[in-house]
């Protein structure tokens, strides 16, 4: 209640204070396909976004930016982990309560599962044409889900303890015995991104990669973000498969870390978003899809070090443009069938 009224207040303050004329002018300057949707969306007034993708802070900023671009349409940001978001949506569906307008998670299988069940609305945002190739191809060919967020996972080092010359250059370098007791990594049972990374390593080097990695006794956390914190503390020196956004945030605060783009490929985990068929605010949901595939969204999220998926928005401070480096990407099918296997294999190999 409180949140809404406060945000409502902010929105109205933005309209009155910072010049209603400006906001109105902005609305007039919208491309025609957005303006039509905006007219319809304004009558719906709000959308509810279940998301497990960006951090809570970034998600809130996206919600605010949407409200500023389309005055009168408020975003209720329901941010949680992807698994919880999916469970919440499943519970809604079982209870027959439609609350969610846009569902975003880091797990492909959520969207493909919902699509197979016939739960999703097909919609092709026109702005998606401006996305980079990796993002466009990762979306559903039938238009049931789209990708406007990807996790970029690479290696990081503690700059105080590992000089650039000695740092590992590729995923296979991590198997060198000199990194024994120096590595930190997340867990595929807790992090979908680590599941995808493990899947790609298995595909490239076979499961043997992990039996050899285990000989170096990596410290296993849960989230793919854990190594970033562990490196900041100085407990370990090399972060394995850390997300670039979090590492860049830590670096921007002055923590002694640096990114390493592995020569054998930076892991990219496309994270899909979809509109449920019974979304209570369908037009606003479509408008949100347009917004999230358009440049304004990436201008907001790059401030929080998320990757830009459009050529017309530069990458975040400190990151390389994605089209300048070698990327490795799992397919939706691989993720859906492979991650469960990888989790079991992981537990057999690492004992946790």
């Amino acid at each position, binding site marked *: 209640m409180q949140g809404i009224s406060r945000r409502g207040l902010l929105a109205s303050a933005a309209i009155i204070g910072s010049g209603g004329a400006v906001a109105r002018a902005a609305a007039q300057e919208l491309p025609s396909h957005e303006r039509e949707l905006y007219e319809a969306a304004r009558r719906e007034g709000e959308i509810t976004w279940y998301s497990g993708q960006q951090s809570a802070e970034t998600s809130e900023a996206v919600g605010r930016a949407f409200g500023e671009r389309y005055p009168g349409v408020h975003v209720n940001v329901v941010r949680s982990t992807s*698994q919880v978001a999916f469970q919440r949506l499943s519970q809604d569906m079982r209870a027959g309560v439609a609350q969610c307008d846009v569902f975003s998670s880091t797990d492909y299988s959520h969207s493909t599962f919902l699509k197979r069940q016939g739960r999703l609305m097909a919609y092709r945002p026109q702005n998606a044409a401006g996305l980079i190739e990796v993002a466009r191809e990762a979306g559903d060919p039938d238009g049931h889900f789209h990708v406007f967020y990807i996790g970029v996972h690479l290696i990081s080092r503690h700059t105080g303890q590992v000089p650039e010359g000695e740092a590992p250059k590729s995923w296979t370098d991590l198997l060198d015995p000199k990194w024994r007791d120096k590595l930190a990594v997340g867990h595929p049972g807790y992090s979908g991104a680590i599941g995808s990374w493990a899947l790609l390593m298995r595909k490239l080097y076979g499961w043997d990669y992990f039996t050899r990695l285990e000989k170096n006794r990596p410290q296993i956390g*849960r989230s793919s973000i854990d190594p970033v914190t562990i490196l900041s*503390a100085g407990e370990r020196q090399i972060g394995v498969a850390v997300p670039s956004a979090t590492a860049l945030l830590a670096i921007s605060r002055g923590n002694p870390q640096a990114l390493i783009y592995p020569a054998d490929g930076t892991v990219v985990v496309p994270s899909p978003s979809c509109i449920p068929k019974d979304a209570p605010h369908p037009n606003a949901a479509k408008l949100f899809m347009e917004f999230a595939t358009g440049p304004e969204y990436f201008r907001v999220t790059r401030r929080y070090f998320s990757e830009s998926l459009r050529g017309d928005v530069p990458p975040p401070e400190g990151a390389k443009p994605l089209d300048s480096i070698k990327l490795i990407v799992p397919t939706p099918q691989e993720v859906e069938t492979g991650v469960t296997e990888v989790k079991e294999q992981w537990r057999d190999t690492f004992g946790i």
Partner: protein
Amino acid sequence: MTESAAILTKTEAEGARRPGLLRRLRYLEPSNLLWILLIAALLFLVAVPIGKLLIVSFEKQGSGDFTFANYATAYGRVRYLEALGNSLMLGGLSALLAVVFAVPLAWAVSRTDMPGKGLTWAMVMGAFIMPPYLGAVGWILLAGPNSGFINQAWTWLTGLQAPLVNVYSFFGLALVISLHSFPLIFIFVKSALDLISSEMEDAANILGAGTWTTTRKVTLPLVWPAVLGGIIVVFLETVALFGTPAIIGIPARINVVTTQLWQFFEYPVRVEVAAAYAMPLLLITIGMIAVQKLLLARKGFVSQTGKGGERRPIRLGRWRWVVLGYCGFVGLLAVLMPLAVLLQASFAKAWGRGLSWDNLTLGNYGYLLFRHEMALPSIWNTLWFSAASATAAVVIAVLVAYIVARKLVPFGSVLSFLAMAPFVIPGIVMAIGFYAAYAAPPIALYGTALIIILAFTARFLPIAFANSAAAVRAVHPEMEEAARILGGGRLLTVRRITAPLIIRSLIGGWLIVFIVASRELSAAVFLVGPRTRTMSVLLYDLSEAGNFEVLAAFGGLLLAITLILVAIGMKLAGRDFMLRRS
């Protein structure tokens, strides 16, 4: 804030209102109506969600057909059984360590002339208020094998490279858990010790026993029920804990029940298997209550007889400094050291850069207080959810404890089982039970504050119950019988005789529930909606964001707010909450 005061004024207000009602209902056995209401509440809070889980554990996913397959899956792998074994051992070790920390402190504060009692109390409160998750982070910074401050100091002192302590070990995990759960035993034991009059000790002294022998043979055996109750609660809390095992146990490669349960909630979610896996925990609860009954059977623990009695502190002489030293040591481990490293992080621009002037900032706090959309609402949510749950839990618990102790209904043990059962259900499973039972229409509590308050009430009912049961057991029925003989009804007797005798214990119980509810994570993380986010959930979200400086600052805010509220609560609850009667 003023909730504890509200409890007091409420009982007074009721005292003024009830007689009229009582006169009318006198011949209708009004107490019986209350008992029926109580049973309904217990059924709603505990039996239905657990029953739902039990049913689900025998259901085939999707179709709902009857099957045993879930049990076969849940116990079909050695790894799953190992996790169960680890949890039981962890619970045992943590409870043991907690007794070692708690009982000497409780004895020192309650019975002796040790100096610095207020400080010791504050330490215990601090250890209790600090969310275990936050304490675990602090201990990783202290005792990480490579970077921990303790190990770095050790290397600096001795030149040895091998770490002195390693938090990523079974003992490290048990120690960190016990450092944040020993206050439960402390509070139980201290309130029991407060009720023992010095006359019993005097009797032993007159017969030639020294202070040590008297304490061992007379004082401590009298509070055995409180110690045992505390051990059980700590054991069960440890088994149900998710945060600390996840943050320390996984790097240590120790799998426990809760981390295993998490695996069953991965996609595709196997609630059915999770339910089957959680069932033996219920059997353990039943077993522990049976053992408790057996151990306490046929012995008298009555210390409050209504015949007066005087309480004098035991003179420790020089030993009081030794005892104070031990209290300080526990405080150092549980509060001062983890707090110091967390505070350092919370005021740091970059945690990894360590202590230096140009690394200091108030920005993390400023961000949370003035620019963060959810920080302040989550604080408010936490406070009122916790207060509401604590009130509901204590009211239900004391009534159940009274019925059971005075054998007012047949099958009283069923009630006490129901009141104790939720503790061993891991929070996340409890949340699933609540979700399954009450989220959907017709009850439709999805996303409301009520579902969280109910879940907290159910989850912490056992603490309130253990606390109330110990309090009720210490009141001899003779005093009530005297009132009954003089014509007082059951409710009048409870209000005039029993309640005043146990009110201090109840306020203590209320504060305990309030505190544990305010730091609860595992159930809350699943039940929060967009507008009902609590501080612990936000803390967890922040930990996912890798922004450790802000996480530590939010932890600092959480601690400061709870501390202030507890201090106000203690003040309003009366001096006698902390100080002995003179």
